């Protein structure tokens, strides 16, 4: 019952107001899918995530569906509309250039998963492992 209701909501926000159902409007190229498995893999690298094959497959389907819904924005005319990045458009918020105490080293290192007495430790960055 609830499931049908959810679908109903989707259908009440159609991209084509006459059809009453979601319409495929691809923003990028003619490809049938909104996002491909290869693109998902690429984005995972950019996002510093590691997906199992099953996760990547599911992500492709789920994000495809969400991106398809987002193409709803195509129908809005935004010519000459300034982007709004912050609802309260404050500019030039200054403070006095005064030196104050910063976080104590021990407090800063306290939550580090791997550390020595004064530094965070990470795997070797240069050269072969």
């Amino acid at each position: 019952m609830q499931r049908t209701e959810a679908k109903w909501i989707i259908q009440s926000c159609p991209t084509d107001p006459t059809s009453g159902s979601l319409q495929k409007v691809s923003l990028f190229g003619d490809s049938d899918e909104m996002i491909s498995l290869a693109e998902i893999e690429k984005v995972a690298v950019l996002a510093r995530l590691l997906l199992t094959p099953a996760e990547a497959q599911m992500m492709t389907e789920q994000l495809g569906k969400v991106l398809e819904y987002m193409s709803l924005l195509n129908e809005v005319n935004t010519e000459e509309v300034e982007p709004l990045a912050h609802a309260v458009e404050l500019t030039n918020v200054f403070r006095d250039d005064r030196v104050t105490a910063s976080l104590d080293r021990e407090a800063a290192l306290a939550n580090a998963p791997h550390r020595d007495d004064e530094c965070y430790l990470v795997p070797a960055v240069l050269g072969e492992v």
Partner: protein
Amino acid sequence: MSLSELTARELLQRLRDGEVKAVEIVSHCLQQVDQYDRKVGAFLRISRDRAMAQAEEIDRRRTRGENLGKLAGLPVAVKDNLCTHGEPTTCASRMLEHFVPPHDATVISRLKAADAIIVGKTNLDEFAMGGSTETSALGRTRNPWDLERIPGGSSGGAAACVAARMVSLSVGSDTGGSIRQPAALCGVTGLKPTYGRVSRFGLVAFASSLDQIGPLAQTAEDCALLLEVLAGHDPKDATSIDRPVPAYSETVRQPLKGLRIGWVREHLGEGVSPEVAAAIQEAIKVFQSLGAEVEEVELPHARYAVATYYIIACSEASSNLARYDGVHYGYRTDEKAMLLELAEERRLLQQQGKTDALEDLDSALVRMYRKTRAEGFGAEVKRRIMLGTYALSAGYYDAYYLKALKVRRLIRRDYDEAFQKVHLIVGPVTPTPAFKLGEKINDPLAMYLFDLFTVGSNLAGLPAMSVPCGFSRDGMPIGLHLQAPPLEEELLLRAAHMFQQATDWHLRRPPLLNGQAAIA
């Protein structure tokens, strides 16, 4: 009368009159937690001993006649994405399961300065990403009105602990409805302030241009009391607004004359359950009977709000959550196992002579980041990081992120125009009452669309409230959404209080608490 039937305001009066002591209130609160939280699961942690010690201290100071803060002796619950110095702040994520912040969030400092007693940290969707509290990696929260249903989210624990009368005051955060939606689904009152009204310093960031901290309580009066403590300028948050904080707790009782309220046709049409629509129409009649004028207003871009919101929120999230790298704090993958795995991958690729793949193979550091994040984040957080990374990536930035920012301005303009005609816009908080646990968890889009009515005020930065306004046939609460122009929290609270003087929906208690029928 049991202490748990009293509002914060009533408790404070009794404390001042010496009729009750803080230790009695805190121990009653802990008793309620013991009795009901095993079923409800609102809290991730309770600070039993510290809370009792603090209560004793408040009582001693009161006996000595010292000046006490505005919330002296009152138990307050805090959502676990607000940093508490020296006490774990997990965001309900494996990533931060053992994170102990080196500082207090500004709202925590303010609560402490007001002599409030922070009794515990409440459950949420992981990093506040979700609308059902089901994405929490650390616990399951249930709706006190029906334990088989979601409490809403992301501040699900924050709403459930008020609904189950464990505390009278609770602090949540709202990025796309995360205070108002669980408040509606649990039958409590919740307020998302104007963006910038409350400092975000120490709130673990999800989407920084949308996040806002606010109160949940049984009544609008109690929300006013708590907001008065939380609000105010903070040099540590450059987006916080430098304006005096009105005396919300005093003005909330002043009735409004000549109130004009607006409603939006689409909010009561298709996709909204008939029970919810009927409850909202009844609520509008209540306002009319109180002298308000009602007229229809239009928000032509409201139908784009969910798409706009998820592009912006996920983009900001992907950037904010880049900090979880397994280096500075939080979870880190097992380094030895990771290095072995990587060496084995390299060996295989060499054996197969796949030189291109060898070149693309992660460095040890990058693999450490990736494995750490793969293991530390849950499915919904990963989904949003992926969406945001995609929307911000080269080639797609203009089509998604920039487009969404432009539509965001159109959404804001709609509100500005509507508020030329009316003082408040009323409607439903959610399209249906609380759904069953597990029902939408595998359908992200359905879950996102449930936010249809709440995300607009975050995109526009407006203050908005959820006020109990009825029940469905199967006894689930329904919330009335009130939206106001920027910095009009007083107006919101006064309107909500007027409504609560004329109705008693906010006083109903879940059957769990008394074994009586919810709707008498």
